[in-house]
């Protein structure tokens, strides 16, 4: 076994002088970017970890005191935190499912050539390039209970209206609808790229064998899109866990914390109520969850198709 392994494994080569010199050059060229990354990303990340074990006084750090795992224990017993986990699961579940299903569906509809489809493709993609704050405000007005487009349409149809962003039942679906509208273009593009790699011969063979469109999609296209679909799921999960701007602009976590996701709770505790140590503990937990998904993504993208 070991002999076979030795025979197939390429021989290990010690780096020559040129290789070492190239490595040093590479490091020298990378060092400005690395330094910036270290100072503005890695350093603060470790500092957040440090703060999370203190009852941190932001205004006078000498008044901070070490609490060990105190903030984490408080987090575990905090009903606000667990509610935010529920809201995050609701938001992430709906946006990931919506992005994947609608993204794939729209990509399938738009995958063939034609001017109209190209225009529709552009229309679907455009919201993704619009600023979140500006379009969130537009949607706040669409959802306005007295003067909004949506409720005006409902009134025209003699359907009872809803205070979309004021209702604990409807605020989260309203946020999800906005997020899907904004982000769907990205997943459509990913799926379109994935569809471009699907073997046309296999599809044609299926058609020759009498497969209907749905069977062709189910039995030929979808299996070849597994990697793409997994990538979309992981990347939209990470994006949804980090969602903040639309929540801040449209609902500010309300009503009654119905849209307070863990990411928004982190902001609220750290920058509204200035419970900095507690906020840092939330940040660490959120970081671990996102890191887990990132590792998953890395593993999936490295796996051969």
């Amino acid at each position: 076994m070991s002999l076979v392994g030795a025979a197939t494994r390429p021989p290990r080569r010690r780096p020559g002088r040129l290789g070492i010199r190239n490595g040093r050059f590479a490091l020298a060229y990378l060092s400005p970017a690395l330094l910036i990354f270290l100072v503005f990303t890695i350093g603060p990340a470790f500092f957040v970890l440090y703060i999370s074990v203190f009852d941190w006084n932001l205004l006078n750090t000498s008044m901070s005191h070490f609490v060990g795992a105190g903030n984490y224990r408080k987090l575990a017993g905090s009903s606000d935190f667990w509610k935010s986990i529920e809201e995050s699961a609701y938001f992430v579940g709906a946006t990931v499912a919506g992005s994947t299903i609608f993204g794939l569906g729209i990509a399938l509809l738009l995958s063939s050539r034609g001017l109209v489809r190209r225009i529709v493709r552009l229309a679907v993609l455009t919201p993704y390039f619009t600023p979140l704050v500006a379009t969130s405000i537009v949607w706040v007005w669409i959802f306005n209970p007295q003067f909004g487009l949506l409720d005006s349409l409902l009134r025209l149809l003699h359907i009872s209206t809803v205070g979309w962003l004021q209702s604990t039942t409807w605020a989260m679906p309203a946020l999800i609808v906005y997020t899907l509208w904004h982000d769907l273009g990205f997943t459509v593009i990913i799926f379109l790229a994935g569809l471009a790699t699907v073997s046309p011969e296999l599809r044609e063979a299926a058609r020759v064998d009498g497969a209907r469109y749905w069977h062709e999609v189910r039995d030929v296209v979808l299996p070849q899109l597994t990697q793409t679909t997994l990538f979309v799921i992981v990347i939209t999960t990470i994006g949804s866990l980090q969602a903040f701007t639309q929540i801040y602009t449209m609902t500010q976590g309300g009503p009654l914390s119905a849209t307070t996701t863990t990411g928004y709770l982190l902001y609220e505790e750290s920058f509204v109520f200035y419970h900095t140590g507690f906020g840092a503990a939330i940040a660490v937990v959120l970081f671990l969850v996102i890191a887990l998904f990132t590792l998953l993504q890395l593993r999936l993208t490295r796996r051969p198709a």
Partner: protein
Amino acid sequence: MHRHRALVLPGLVVAAAVVTLAAYGSTTKRDSTVTITFMEAMSSGKQKPALDLLTSRFERANPGITVNLIAEPNYGVLQQKEQASIAAGAPPTIAQAYENWAAGYADAQAIIPLDGYVHGKSGITAAEQSAFWKGVWKDLYLPDGKIWMWPFNKSDYVVYYNADMLQKAGLAMPKTWVQYATVAKQLTKNGNWAESMDTGTLSAPANGTYVYLSIVRAFGGTWVANGKPTLDTTAGIKALGYLADLKKAGALQIGTNYPGQTALGAGRSAFDLSTVAGYPYVLGAVGGKFSMKVAPMPSGRNGQGNSLQGTNIVIFSKSSTAERAAAWEYMKFLSEPRQTAYWAEATGYLPVTRAALPIMKGYIATHPYQQIAAQSLQTAGGSPPYAWWTTAVGQVAQAMQAVLDNGGDPAHALATAQQKALAAANGG
């Protein structure tokens, strides 16, 4: 190469000389002048040019003092910048601050008490002190009994109303909350309603939150007693029930993004309960479509119960003695009758002292609402000066959402709010 080397030495000598001269120049300047920095959020509309003008007038009158204004786009950013600058150990000399911000800064020893300046050699006289509106003066203290803030841009609530709508219905502007409810319900017909309100959220209380708190005071309730929140008083429950009743009758609608202004401007609602500083914006929303008038807030058994709005100025403890003295001169200057009158006329904020009213006679003749609102400053209540009030007022907004948006019970919603506010007050 040698030629280049020959140029390096003289170059270094010249550069060193320039640096030395520059340093000498700045030292000389520092010896004769004091530069103070003022972090503020008066950066929009007519506020910026008005503050710029007052500052340049001050600098002309005080040649030894330079004031650098650090303008921030809004109060949210202002607070974050202040907090960040304190955390970084480089705060400005002075800054605008709400009462609860000041309480947090004082707890962290980031600001200094002002009693020594107010009652000192360059302080104010007893007559000047008594001319400040009572509500404004009371608002300068923290619970330790010391003056920590100095008044700047103050406002309170008034009622903007569609005078044509009321006249058409044969109704007069209500003077009490009882009358207001009756009139509001009578005006709710043909797709119109009385008032739109933003309840605010836990992290961002809004106008509606403070209107409710005003009604609580008018009904004889309190927000705080003995250093602890009192959100679930009988008056509080009654006030929330009062709004719930209006909502049930369709007279009160809930919205976001200044819904009162939008609905009044669109001619759909009769009233907008908002701060006097919003006058130019309400006027813009109405756009001359109907006759818009301004009235004082209705009263309850405990009077008007208005909520004081706007900020004060604080001096940060990192500043030097000379900077503090210069800052005090500037703050005092801004609050003097002539300057506060100019500020009020230019921006719509209120003069902080009664002594400004004679100067504003001509202006008040054309803008009578200014006097109405200014007089309310006598009794208006400022935000309680406790750092935990941020949580408490957020909980009030939550209780309003529970009742007005989601049909909750006022007593239960306020009991929950009180429990959480109390936990925050107890350091939880």
